[in-house]
């Protein structure tokens, strides 16, 4: 049994963590009152935030698992303020983590675009890697593109920090790409969080299970470390008419991914976990599909979890190489910085011209 640590940082990270806790209870609104969480592994969760109100919002995360970093009202989407705040509270956080014992693997969940999550996550992963010798992965959410220039800037710097840092890799999910999961923003958040939670639980289960063909933490590590150190997850579920072949395809298709990616061209490594009843899992079909993918992207690790009476589900972890969508994100991020720059200069000019005009004048009464 693995010991797994999940940290959710900032509002987005907190809420996804809460979603994971909820799904582990089975998903019901009052499930926490009677249920027991069905993690396969020994899982410890911690929600970290500077904003106490965000912590209060959580429903399925124990109060002793909520850690408030005192800093007035959050760091207001400013990553520099956030990084300072992290440095000042680093020991407090690491102590809280150590109190939970030793782990085999840790995940840090946050949005790339806000303040707290975006600025804490890279140095937190750095600090954990320095002190502990388990693998630490990020799970990072990209913003809706219309959320404005500050969020876009934050995102690309956060990604850059993560790609350059010593973390073991980061899974990305893109709000923009997934926005169809809800009619309005709140519903989209809930839908996205639930989707991420369900897939993540599937992944955890797979990492801690005996499989027919083996994939394990080691394979996961290899996949996550390759390419740009960014990865995403795809998922497919068989229903009435879907064969295992199409289910695998679905898991690497537009509808199954968490991020806009053409796996056959843009992925560099993959790990595929297939679960289901033996009678639905035709080994030849699986091999054909996996081979198709591996002939395009190199190696694909695969694992099969046999479950009696269960329709096939497929989860694919894809490491991202050169990606059109990432390029685009960095481009608009850079544009956003330009816009902010122009705005700053205009304000400076206006201030200058005001003080020029008033030069030598005094109010008269």
């Amino acid at each position: 049994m693995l010991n797994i640590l999940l940290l959710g940082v900032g509002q987005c990270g907190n809420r996804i963590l809460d979603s994971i806790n909820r799904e582990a209870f089975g998903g019901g609104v009052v499930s926490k009152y009677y249920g027991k969480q069905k993690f396969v592994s020994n899982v410890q969760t911690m929600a970290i935030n500077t904003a106490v109100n965000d912590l209060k919002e959580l429903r399925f995360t124990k109060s002793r698992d909520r850690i408030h970093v005192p800093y007035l009202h959050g760091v207001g989407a400013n990553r520099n303020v956030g990084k300072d705040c992290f440095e000042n509270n680093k020991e407090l956080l690491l102590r809280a983590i150590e109190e939970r014992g030793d782990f085999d693997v840790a995940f840090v969940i946050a949005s790339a675009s806000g303040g707290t999550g975006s600025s804490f996550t890279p140095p937190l992963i750095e600090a954990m890697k320095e002190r502990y010798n388990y693998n630490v992965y990020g799970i990072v959410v990209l913003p809706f593109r219309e959320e404005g220039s500050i969020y876009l800037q934050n995102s690309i710097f956060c990604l850059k920090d993560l790609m350059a840092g010593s973390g073991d890799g980061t899974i990305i999910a893109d709000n923009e790409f997934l926005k169809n999961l809800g009619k309005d923003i709140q519903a989209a958040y809930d839908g996205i969080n639930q989707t991420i939670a369900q897939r993540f639980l599937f992944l955890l289960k797979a990492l801690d299970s005996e499989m027919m063909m083996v994939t394990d933490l080691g394979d996961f590590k290899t996949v996550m470390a390759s390419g740009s150190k960014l990865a995403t997850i795809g998922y497919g579920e068989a229903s009435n008419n879907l064969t295992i072949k199409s289910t695998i395809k679905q898991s690497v298709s537009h509808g199954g991914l968490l991020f806009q990616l053409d796996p056959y061209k843009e992925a560099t490594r993959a790990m595929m976990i297939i679960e289901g009843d033996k009678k639905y899992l035709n080994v030849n079909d699986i091999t054909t599909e996996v081979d198709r993918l591996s002939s395009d992207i190199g190696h694909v690790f695969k694992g099969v979890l046999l479950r009696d009476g269960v329709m096939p589900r497929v989860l694919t972890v894809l490491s991202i190489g050169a990606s059109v969508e990432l390029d685009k994100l960095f481009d608009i991020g850079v544009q956003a910085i330009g816009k902010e720059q122009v705005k700053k200069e205009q304000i400076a000019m206006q201030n200058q011209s005001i003080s020029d005009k008033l030069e030598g004048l005094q109010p008269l009464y």
Partner: protein
Amino acid sequence: MRKIWIILLVLLMFSGVASAKVEYFYMENNTGLNFMNGYYLIEVIDIKKADFFAIVNLTSDGQSNRYHIRSESSSISTYPWNRINDINASFFTDNSFRMGIDYPDNWSAPVKYTISSATGTKSDSSKVPIIVVTKSVEETDINVGDIIEIKIKTTNTGNETASGVTLTEYMPEGFIRATGSRFPPVVKEKLEPGESDEIYYALEAVKAGTFTIEPTKIEYGTGRKESNSITITVSREVKEKSQLVTEIFIDDNDVMTGDLINMVVKIINNGNASAESVLIEGSVPKGLELEEGDLRQLYKKIESGEYESYSVILKAVDGGNYTVRLKTSYNDDTVGFATSSETISVTKKEKNPVDYWYIILPITGLIVGVVLFTMNRHKEYRY
């Protein structure tokens, strides 16, 4: 955080005005969208993935014009192409992209088609897949709230495997997806010669009227086929129906063991048709005994507005609270409904309530335990 919400809200409000009807279509090279039987056509000419734009040809009123479209919406101002408000392109791959179109509310959904390039040049037509697609339902005359199951059957009558088979199905007006059913349906991707595939999906009628379920479109390679369409008539009112109500009257509901209770059962037809094969069934709760009569009764027919009644006599034999439950079923409600009498409380003559403590004590203990557990859980999660 608050500020951001406000900005988002404002953004949403503005985008709501401008693009309430934006719909997205995944387009490949040499495909087009046909609005309102040719009233307006959009055809994809070229996809420039590297530069993030696509070239489309807009045709309306017999006039055509080329436009370069990108991820920012370009609004179209020249007549007649300005019959659509806005068009944009995003999510490029080598041979496809997502096209967003803001078109007038009163247009129906467009039909996607493949632009026929000079065909007939291929001479090796001896081996071709030919797909035949049909669509059927069991009932075309239904009521609001009814669920219909639509069957789509595709058969490859050609002599070559059809691969890359895709299916397009539009949600007809007046219906929603029935819970538990998959929509849009997914077709088998590959059909061998002679092979056929049947897929089903279910819709629920939500509106009265006559509605058309558009033809199913099947594409495979360069081939395209359409099924028949189906017209469904949905009526608002349920037909003439009988509606029974069963009432139970008791002359005394607070008795001592040994007492007799008179019970009268009345079955009234409030519907506008006669009820047939009316069956009333029930069993006497333990603690009571049937002294006279039969709870089970059968009536061939109860006319609309009429009623039937019967009576039985029960005897209280054991202390406790009891209700008599009867089930009434008939031709218009074969599942039946339940009716309960008011509670009859029977007091044991000689024994006093203290004798029941052996039941009350453990139950109270159990309840207290559950409450304490829940409170403890609540405390664990309160912040």
